């Protein structure tokens, strides 16, 4: 658990940075359904539609963000989520 692989996440909205940090997995609302991204995913450029992005950080905590449409790019273990509008909605612990 300690040396679990992680990826760098940087989420930005058009007018402000939303969240950045490390994560063990990220789920994004792709145009053709939810898409999960794990560390060492192949480089990817994808459109996302409005919905919820959820990020699981290394301590197992789940962060959820409500986003409008945008896109993600993933390259060398760095995930950039760029959305028109985005905000942090609920912060629930993964334990419960």
């Amino acid at each position, binding site marked *: 658990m300690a040396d679990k692989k992680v990826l760098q996440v940087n989420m930005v909205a*058009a*007018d402000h940075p939303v969240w950045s940090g490390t994560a063990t997995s990220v789920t994004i609302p792709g145009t053709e359904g939810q898409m999960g991204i794990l560390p060492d995913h192949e480089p990817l450029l994808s459109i996302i539609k409005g919905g919820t992005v959820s990020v699981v950080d290394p301590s197992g905590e789940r962060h959820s963000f409500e986003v409008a449409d945008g896109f993600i790019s993933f390259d060398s273990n760095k995930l950039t989520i760029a959305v028109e509008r985005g905000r942090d909605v609920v912060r629930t612990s993964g334990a419960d």
Partner: protein
Amino acid sequence: MASQLALKSRINSTTSLGKIFNAQEMIASSHIAKARNVALNAKPYTDAIFDAVQALAAHTHIDHPIMKTHDRGDGHARVAVLALTADRGMAGAYTSSIIRETEGLLAHLDSEGKDPQLYVYGRRGVSYYKYRNRDVAGTWDGDSDHPGVEVAESISSALMDAYMKPEDEHGVSELYVVFTEFVNMVVQKVRVLRMLPVELIRPAVDTSDGITMAELAEPDDADDPASEVSPLYSFEPSVDEVLDAILPKYIQSRIHECLLTAAASETASRQNAMHTATDNANNLIDSLTRELNASRQAAITQELTEIIGSADALNKEEE
């Protein structure tokens, strides 16, 4: 010499004007910090889009109308010019420099045989062209000192529409933006930017040194001459759809960036103008006070002369 009463009332009115200028200056300087923050906050998004577009440019052969000059016959190409002006005055030469530059650009485009369509943002610019009965293809106003994403969105979607339309439906083939760049607190420069078609600064694909971005990342594929497009990235749902989605966003974020630097420049030039106005008001108050003092002294001297004169006359009578 003006009467003391007149001078006093002028001093009073100048003092209150000076207070207003001073307050405006303070407001402007507090807004600069905010405008800067907004610009800084928007930067990660702009960078993210820019990186994505760079990645697209590096790994695909972009074949999208945004990227190339439309070949639309000759001699009569419509081009769009977007001028970013202020909503309010009291910003020195801010709006007038933009208008001067825009006029210059319009004349230049005319001389090239193009047909410029004018788009204006900012109430001052809009009223300038309305007053002169000029044809303006589109106008926006409001919040020129803190433009939101919504304004950028509506401007860019209108311009994209005009750009994507075919020539016979009043489509345009190029887009120029005239805006003020924020160099520093004292210097703001008017710049003309050709935004469409997009010109990308491609990473140097110089095969002679054998180092390209794609090769650095994935050396195995570099030797394969058949694949011109390095299969480094995968695109979801497809390259075309990603292009269709990202390029308009790229334009929008560029326009938003221009709006934000224009807003910062506007605030800075308002602060400068108000600072000068406060200084001028103070100078005026000083010289008016001097004039008032001189006129008061003159009145006192005159009274003294009168008293002494009459006393002398009385003394002479007694003798």
